[in-house]
């Protein structure tokens, strides 16, 4: 029993680390690097979001709001106030953590579709503010962000960003797996399974829901901050309702309550539009179709469906 969980925990992380380490030799140019880096950034958001949606069973249709807040905090503090990027990043995470903590209690009292509405509203409010505060954010035309530097060392190569994002993703996945396989993680999954039974077992469900909401928001903000410095330019579409839906789709597509599923879901959905360009005008039609068909035939998501199938084959 013990051996199995530890092996699956670290085995997966090891495989991920090997893939991350080897991949750069197979990426021919900056376009491929860009897709992979964007996948990695999305994957960090999705691993956090999966803790909230897949494990704790609390839906959020507003996480792009946190992503954008992290991104814009970094941009504004670094470029408008001249703070060192790493300090801006830390401050951004703190701001998002406090905000998420403040709204978590009333929002997480809601359930199901009502929670979906409330988080959606929250995301839209953030996105409108980013759009309207032109003096601070540049409004819809966006704002430039200077590159990331640490100890006087500037990161501006694609390979540099690849290692930062890849490393961050490995650590995020490792931390998430650790958390899930602990009393805290079991408590979270219990909240999903039956809130009242979890309480009877002594789980302070409100506290854990708030905790995981804040954790997922902070991860989104961290990814947002990386994105801001990596791409060098921000527009409010990073915080839009569509982006939130995209994150949730990645989580569900990869597989709810599957950390590696989230990584796969993020990679697939980031790369998919690049493949679909062959359909020209029908690109979006195909995108919608792929979304629908995947979820109809694999309602549990790619990775769990694949695992089920392999289990059935082998047994």
């Amino acid at each position: 029993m013990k051996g199995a969980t530890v092996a699956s925990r670290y085995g997966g992380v090891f495989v991920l680390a090997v893939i991350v380490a080897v991949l750069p030799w197979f990426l021919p140019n900056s376009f491929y690097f860009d897709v992979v880096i964007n996948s990695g950034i999305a994957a960090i958001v999705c691993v956090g979001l999966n803790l909230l949606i897949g494990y704790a069973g609390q839906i959020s249709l507003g996480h792009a709001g946190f992503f954008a807040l992290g991104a814009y905090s970094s941009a504004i503090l670094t470029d408008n106030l001249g703070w060192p990027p790493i300090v801006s990043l830390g401050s951004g995470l703190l701001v998002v953590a406090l905000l998420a903590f403040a709204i978590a209690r009333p929002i997480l009292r809601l359930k199901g579709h009502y929670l979906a509405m409330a988080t959606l509203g929250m995301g839209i409010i953030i996105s409108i503010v980013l759009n309207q505060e032109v003096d601070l954010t540049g409004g819809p035309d966006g704002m430039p962000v200077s590159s990331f530097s640490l100890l006087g060392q500037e990161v501006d190569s694609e390979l540099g960003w690849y290692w930062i994002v890849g490393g961050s993703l490995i650590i995020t996945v490792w931390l998430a797996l650790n958390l899930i396989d602990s009393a805290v993680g079991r408590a979270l999954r219990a909240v999903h399974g039956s809130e009242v039974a979890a309480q009877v077992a002594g789980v302070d469900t409100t506290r854990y829901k708030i905790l995981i909401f804040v954790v997922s928001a902070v991860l989104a903000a961290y990814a947002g901050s990386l994105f801001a410095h990596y791409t060098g330019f921000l527009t409010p579409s990073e915080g839009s309702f569509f982006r939130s839906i995209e994150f949730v789709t990645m989580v569900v597509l990869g597989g709810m309550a599957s950390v590696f599923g989230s990584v796969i879901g993020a990679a697939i959905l980031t790369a998919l539009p690049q493949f679909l360009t062959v359909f020209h005008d029908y690109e979006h039609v195909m995108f919608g179709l792929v979304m629908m068909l995947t979820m109809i035939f694999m309602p549990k998501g790619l990775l769990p469906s694949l695992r089920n199938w392999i289990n059935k084959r082998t047994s």
Partner: protein
Amino acid sequence: MSLLEITGLSKSFGGVQAVQELEYTVESGKIHSIIGPNGAGKTTLFNMVTGIFKPSSGEVHFNGQDVTGLPVHELAALGISRSFQNLQVFFNMTVLENVMVGRHLHCRREFLQSLLHTPAITRSDEGARHRAAELLEWVGLKAYVGDHADSLPYGALKRMEIARALACEPKLLLLDEPAAGLNNKETQEINELIQQISERGITVVLVEHDMRLVMGVSDHILVMDHGKKLAEGTAAEVRENPDVVAAYLGRGD
């Protein structure tokens, strides 16, 4: 010594009195049962004792402490646990993990340490895993330990819920219709299990419709009707109580 003391407890839902002015005492170490027709307020009473419902009025004392209206998880920490009439299983987890959730309060659960999975967390988890496996074996579910909860038969889930409740190491265990939906043999096994639980020094309160089970195991029986106490006493006393006879026979229940 009384473990649980309920005084003047009432609960109403939008004008409907589910429980009215109830006085009830649970003695430490004994097996208690609560019987009564559907809608008598038995489960509502459980829900108030475990903190799921806030009482409209009245008080609940546990172990000499006023616990009226405390949140569920705090009552759990004080030593009150329960099973559910309609199963409340964590279907997204394995059987072992279900019971491990019951060990929540006995596990180390510092957030940062959990993130890093420090050796302290690993040790505490090992302890919980060991204890949960033990309890599953004790309730007779050894064969199912590694299975997913959604693959278990109904009767096994009922036992798993009891194992989960026991994992909390409660002083008071409330069992809501543990024999509902079980066949004779299974009911007999539950009967034995309840007696074994009691032998471990855990006070048990049982809500049950199966009269043979109730009459067989109970040291004390409370009869409820329309949210009120109709009668209480030993099995023999209750059986001969004219009000009880009238209520049951009159309704042909």
